[in-house]
C-alpha cells in the first residue's frame, strides 16, 4: 500500500518528502545522540564538580573542626549551599554526629545513612531521590594528618541540571526544526525548479505525441559560443543559435573542434570555456536530446510523407495506367483468390473491384469455365511457365476473342508466387486478319483468273469462228444449224465470263480523270432504265444539290454503277423500288447509295458479298464477280464500299412505288474522295 501512495505522489512532493525524511532521519538521532552525550558529559562534569566541591569543603573544614568552630562550619555549609545547584551541605564528625548543616528547621535524618565517605580517597557519590528531585550526594572524608576526622556531605541537584539538558535538547531540536523547515523550503524550491523543467519536458513530449514536432524544449542560453569566443564565424551553424549548445551540433566551424563528431566534441570540449559555462545538468542534456530527437523525428516524418506522397502518386499513376488499359488484368494469389483487378476486368465481370478481390473464379464463371481457368492458373503456378493463348469468351450474350496471357509473379505480401492474367480483346484484330487473308486470296485468285481468261480467250475465239463458219455450211432450220447456234450461244456466254474475269484481273488499270459522279450515274441509269421498266421496277435517282467531282476512269465507274443496278434489279425481281442517291457527306467525300426493296441479304452472307464468285443467283445468271470487281475499283480509287441489309429505314422515305411485296431490301454505299479543283471540261463533255 505504502509504495502505491508514494507512487501517486508528485515528483516534487517526493523530493521534498525525501529531503525532509533525510534531514529528520539525520537530525533526530543526532539530537538524541548529542543530548545524551551532553547529558552524560554534564553529569560527569556535575559529579566531578560535586566531588571537587566536597573535597574542597572537606579540606577547608579541618581547621574549624580542629578548633570546634561550629559557627564557621555552619557558615561554610551555608555558603556552599547558597550555590545555585547545591541543595544542601553538612559536616559530620568521626562519630557520625552532624556538626553543622545548611538545613534549617531540623535535619533530615535519613540523609545520614544513605552515603558514607571512605576513609580516604575520592568522595563517595550516591544518587538520591528526594520526593521526585534527583540529587547527587557526595560524601568526602575529612582527614587531618592521616586521621579520619569526619566527613562533609554535599547535595547537588541533578534535576536542575537535567532541566538544563532538557532546555539544551529543546533548543537543539528547535534549531534542527528550523533548519529542517529551511531545508524543506529550500528543497521545495529546488524540487520546483527541477520538476518545472521535467514538467516542461513532459508537456513537450505530449505535444510531440499530438504531432507537434516543431517545438523546442531547450533552455535559452544567455551567451552561446559565438558570443563567448567572439569568433565572428557567421556561417557556422552554431552562430545565432541560442537554444542548442555548440558541442551538440554537427559541422561547427570552431577551430578547436572543427570536423569532430558531437560525441568527440563532448570529450574534447570539457576544458573549453564555452562548455564550462554552458554545460548545464542532466535535465538540460535530456531536454536537448529530446529536441534533437523531435527534430530528427520531424525530418524523418517529412521524408516519410514525401516518400509516401511519391509512392501514392506512383500508385495512382499505376492505377490509372491499369484502369485505362482496355486489357483485363487480374492478380491472383497462390490459393487462386483475386488480389487485385483493374477497372476493365471489373467492368467485364460487371462488378466493382472491391467485390472481386478476395474471391475465386467459381463465384463469377460457370463451373466448367471456372474449373478450366483454375486449372490453367494452377499449371502456371506449378510449372512457372507462362501461358499464352487465344480464346473465345462469351459474356453477357456477346462472344469476344481474347489473347490470354497467364504468368507467375511474385506475391505482393509475403513473396509467395502469384498469378497475373491479362486478357486482351482481339476480336477486331482477328476480323482484320481474316479480311487480310481474304484480300490476299482474292488477289491470288484475280491473277489466276486473268491468266486463265487470257489463255481461254483464244480457243474460245477459234470455237466461235468455227461455229459461225459451219453455220454458213449448214442450212437453216436443220438440226445441225440448231446445234451450231447453241454452240455459238454458249461460246458467247463463255466469252462474257472470260471478259469479266479479265476485267477483274485488270482492276488497277484504266486512265483516271476528273469526272462528275452525276454523269456516270445518269449514263448507267440510262442503260438499265428500259430493263427496269420491263420488270416494273421504279428507279429513282436523287443526284443531290452539289457537283461531286472525282478522279476516276468513267468507264470503270459506270461499270460499278451498272453492277449495283443489276444486282438491285435481280434482288427486286418483279415490282419494286430502287433508289440511287448521291450526296456530299464531307467537304472531301461523297457517297452514292443504291437501295432496293428486294429480298435482302442473309446476315451470314453480308460479309461475303464482296468475295469473288460469291453469288446467290442461279447458275448461269451471275458470275459472282460483279461486286468483287466493284469493290476492287472503289478501293482502287481510295474509297470504301459497304453493304447494309435490311436497308436503312430512311432509305425510301418519301419515295413511292416500292412494289407489291417489298422485301427487307439492301443498300450498297460507295464513298469516294472528291477531287479538289475545277472540272476537266473536255473529258466530261465528251462523255456526255
Amino acid at each position, binding site marked *: 500500500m505504502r509504495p502505491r501512495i508514494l507512487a501517486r505522489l508528485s515528483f516534487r512532493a517526493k523530493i521534498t518528502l525525501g529531503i525532509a525524511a533525510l534531514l529528520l532521519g539525520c537530525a533526530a*538521532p543526532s539530537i*538524541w*545522540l548529542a543530548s*545524551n*552525550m551532553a*547529558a*552524560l558529559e554534564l*553529569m560527569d562534569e556535575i559529579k566531578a564538580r560535586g566531588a571537587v566541591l566536597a573535597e574542597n569543603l572537606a579540606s577547608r573544614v*579541618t*581547621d574549624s573542626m*580542629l*578548633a*570546634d*568552630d561550629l559557627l564557621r562550619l555552619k557558615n561554610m555549609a551555608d555558603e556552599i549551599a547558597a550555590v545555585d545547584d547545591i541543595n544542601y551541605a553538612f559536616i559530620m564528625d568521626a562519630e557520625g*554526629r*552532624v*556538626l553543622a*548543616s545548611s*538545613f534549617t*528547621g*531540623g*535535619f*533530615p*535524618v*535519613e*540523609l545520614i545513612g*544513605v552515603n558514607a565517605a571512605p576513609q580516604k580517597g575520592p568522595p563517595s557519590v*550516591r*544518587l*538520591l*531521590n*528526594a*520526593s521526585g528531585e*534527583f*540529587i547527587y550526594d557526595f560524601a568526602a572524608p575529612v582527614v*587531618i*594528618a592521616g*586521621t579520619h576526622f569526619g566527613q562533609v556531605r554535599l547535595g547537588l541537584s541533578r534535576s536542575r541540571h537535567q532541566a538544563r539538558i532538557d532546555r539544551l535538547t529543546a533548543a537543539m531540536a528547535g534549531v534542527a526544526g528550523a533548519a529542517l523547515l529551511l531545508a524543506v523550503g529550500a528543497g521545495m524550491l529546488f524540487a520546483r525548479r527541477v520538476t518545472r523543467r521535467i514538467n516542461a519536458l513532459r508537456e513537450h513530449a505530449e505535444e510531440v505525441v499530438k504531432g507537434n514536432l516543431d517545438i523546442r524544449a531547450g533552455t535559452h542560453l544567455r551567451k552561446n559560443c559565438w558570443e563567448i569566443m567572439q569568433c565572428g564565424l557567421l556561417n557556422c551553424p552554431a552562430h545565432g543559435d541560442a537554444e542548442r549548445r555548440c558541442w551538440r551540433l554537427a559541422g561547427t566551424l570552431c577551430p578547436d573542434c572543427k570536423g569532430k563528431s558531437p560525441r568527440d566534441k563532448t570529450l574534447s570540449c570539457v576544458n573549453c570555456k564555452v562548455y564550462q559555462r554552458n554545460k548545464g545538468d542532466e535535465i538540460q542534456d535530456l531536454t536537448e536530446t529530446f529536441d534533437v530527437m523531435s527534430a530528427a523525428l520531424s525530418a524523418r516524418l517529412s521524408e516519410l510523407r514525401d516518400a509516401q506522397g511519391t509512392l501514392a502518386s506512383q500508385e495512382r499513376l499505376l492505377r490509372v495506367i491499369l484502369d485505362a488499359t482496355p486489357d483485363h488484368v487480374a492478380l491472383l494469389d497462390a490459393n487462386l483468390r483475386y488480389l487485385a483487378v483493374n477497372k476493365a476486368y471489373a467492368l467485364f465481370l460487371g462488378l466493382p473491384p472491391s467485390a472481386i478481390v478476395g474471391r475465386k473464379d467459381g463465384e463469377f464463371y460457370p463451373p466448367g469455365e471456372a474449373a478450366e481457368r483454375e486449372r490453367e492458373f494452377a499449371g502456371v503456378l506449378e510449372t512457372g511457365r507462362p501461358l499464352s493463348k487465344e480464346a473465345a469468351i462469351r459474356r453477357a450474350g456477346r462472344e469476344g476473342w481474347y489473347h490470354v496471357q497467364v504468368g507467375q509473379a511474385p506475391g505482393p505480401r509475403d513473396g509467395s508466387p502469384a498469378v497475373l492474367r491479362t486478357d486482351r480483346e482481339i476480336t477486331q484484330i482477328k476480323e482484320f486478319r481474316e479480311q487480310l487473308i481474304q484480300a490476299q486470296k482474292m488477289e491470288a485468285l484475280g491473277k489466276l483468273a486473268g491468266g486463265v481468261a487470257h489463255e481461254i480467250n483464244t480457243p474460245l475465239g477459234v470455237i466461235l469462228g468455227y461455229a459461225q463458219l459451219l453455220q454458213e455450211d449448214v442450212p437453216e432450220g436443220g438440226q445441225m444449224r440448231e446445234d451450231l447456234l447453241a454452240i455459238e450461244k454458249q461460246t458467247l456466254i463463255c466469252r462474257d465470263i472470260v471478259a469479266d474475269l479479265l476485267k477483274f484481273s485488270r482492276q488497277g488499270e484504266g486512265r483516271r480523270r476528273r469526272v462528275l459522279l452525276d454523269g456516270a450515274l445518269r449514263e448507267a441509269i440510262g442503260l438499265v432504265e428500259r430493263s427496269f421498266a420491263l420488270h416494273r421496277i421504279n428507279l429513282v435517282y436523287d443526284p443531290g444539290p452539289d457537283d461531286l467531282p472525282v478522279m476516276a476512269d468513267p468507264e470503270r465507274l459506270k461499270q460499278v454503277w451498272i453492277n449495283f443496278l443489276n444486282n438491285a434489279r435481280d434482288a427486286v425481281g418483279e415490282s419494286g423500288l430502287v433508289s440511287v442517291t448521291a450526296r456530299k457527306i464531307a467537304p472531301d467525300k461523297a457517297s452514292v447509295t443504291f437501295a432496293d426493296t428486294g429480298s435482302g441479304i442473309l446476315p451470314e452472307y453480308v460479309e461475303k458479298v464482296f468475295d469473288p464468285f460469291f453469288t446467290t443467283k442461279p447458275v448461269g445468271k451471275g458470275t459472282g464477280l460483279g461486286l468483287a470487281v466493284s469493290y476492287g475499283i472503289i478501293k482502287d480509287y481510295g474509297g470504301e464500299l459497304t453493304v447494309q441489309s435490311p436497308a436503312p429505314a430512311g432509305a425510301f422515305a418519301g419515295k413511292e412505288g416500292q412494289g407489291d411485296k417489298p422485301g427487307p431490301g439492301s443498300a450498297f454505299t460507295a464513298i469516294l474522295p472528291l477531287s479538289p479543283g475545277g472540272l476537266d471540261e473536255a473529258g466530261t463533255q465528251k462523255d456526255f
Partner: protein
Amino acid sequence: MTAPRFALLALLAFVLAAAPGCGPDEEPIPVDMSRREEPAPAAPKRGLTYAYLPQYAHAVSYQRHRLLVEYLSKAVGMPIRQVFPDTFDEHVKMVARGEIDISFSNPFVYLRLAEHGARAFARIVEPSGKPAFRGQIIVRRDDPAIRSVADCRGKRWMAVDPSSAGGYLFALGEFYDHGLREEDFGAIGFAPGPGGKQEKVVLAVYSGTWDVGSIREGALALLADRIDLDRIRILAETRAYPSWVYAARPGLDPEVVRKVSQAMFALSVNRPDDAVILQSANIRGLIPATDADYDSVRELAKKLGLTPETIQ
C-alpha cells in the same frame, strides 16, 4: 530483507551502540527529606588541653604535635587533647581563662602568658642542638651600598611578621643596638601570608625587591637547593635568645605539670620511637625551663618598647 533495509538497520544498531551511557541509569536511593530532627548537643569534652601557638594552620599544628600529644596522654595517663585557638591573642586569652592547660609558644607570647600567671616548665632544643636561637639580617652579596648594619639606614627592610621573634623582633633589637629605629628605614614590610614567610623574605632580598631581610636562624637552609645562596650575605646575627617554651596555665595541678614535664624530658632523639615524635614536632628535645630563662627576652621587649599588650 532487502539490502537497503539491512543497511538502515545496521546504521541504527551502530548509532545505538555508539551512544555511550544510553544503558540503564544508576538506581536512585529514595530519601525522605521531610523527616527531620534537631541534632543532639555534643557532650562536653574531658581531659587536659594542649595548644600550639597558632603560628601555622591548625592542621599543621595538629599534624606536628599529634604524636607528642598522644605520647604525653599515654605517659601521663590521662586524656590530653589538642585545641586550636585561631590567633595569638586568643591563645593568650584561652590560657588566661584556663581553657588551655599546656601552652607551647614563642618567648614573646610567653611574656604575655607569664603576665597572666602562666609559668614556663620546659623549653625545646632547636634542631641546631641548642635550646636557643638567633635572628639573621641578610642582604644581597653584590649590594655595594650595604657593608654594615649601619648601612641599612634608609634602606627597604622586609621582615617575616611583626610578631615574629627570630624574623623581626630579634633583628629590630640588633638595629636598636646599632642606633637604628623603625623610622630610619626607607620602608619596613612584612612577608605576605600565610605560610612560607621565612622563604618569602629570602626570595624578596634575593630578587632585589627589598634591600634588607630579617629571618630566623636556619631559614636559609630551607632554600638551599632552590636558589644560589652564595648571592645572599648574612650581614649580622643577633644574640641568642631562649627557644620556644611550654607553660602551664595558672592553677593547673603541679602534679600534672610534673608528670607532663617528666614525660617530656624522657623523650630522647636517640630512641627511634621518640625520634619520630620529636621530628614530627620539629624539635630535637625538651629540657626544663624556668621563667627566669626568658629575662633576656623581657629586656629586649623593654628595649623595643613592647608591652604585653603590644606583643602580638
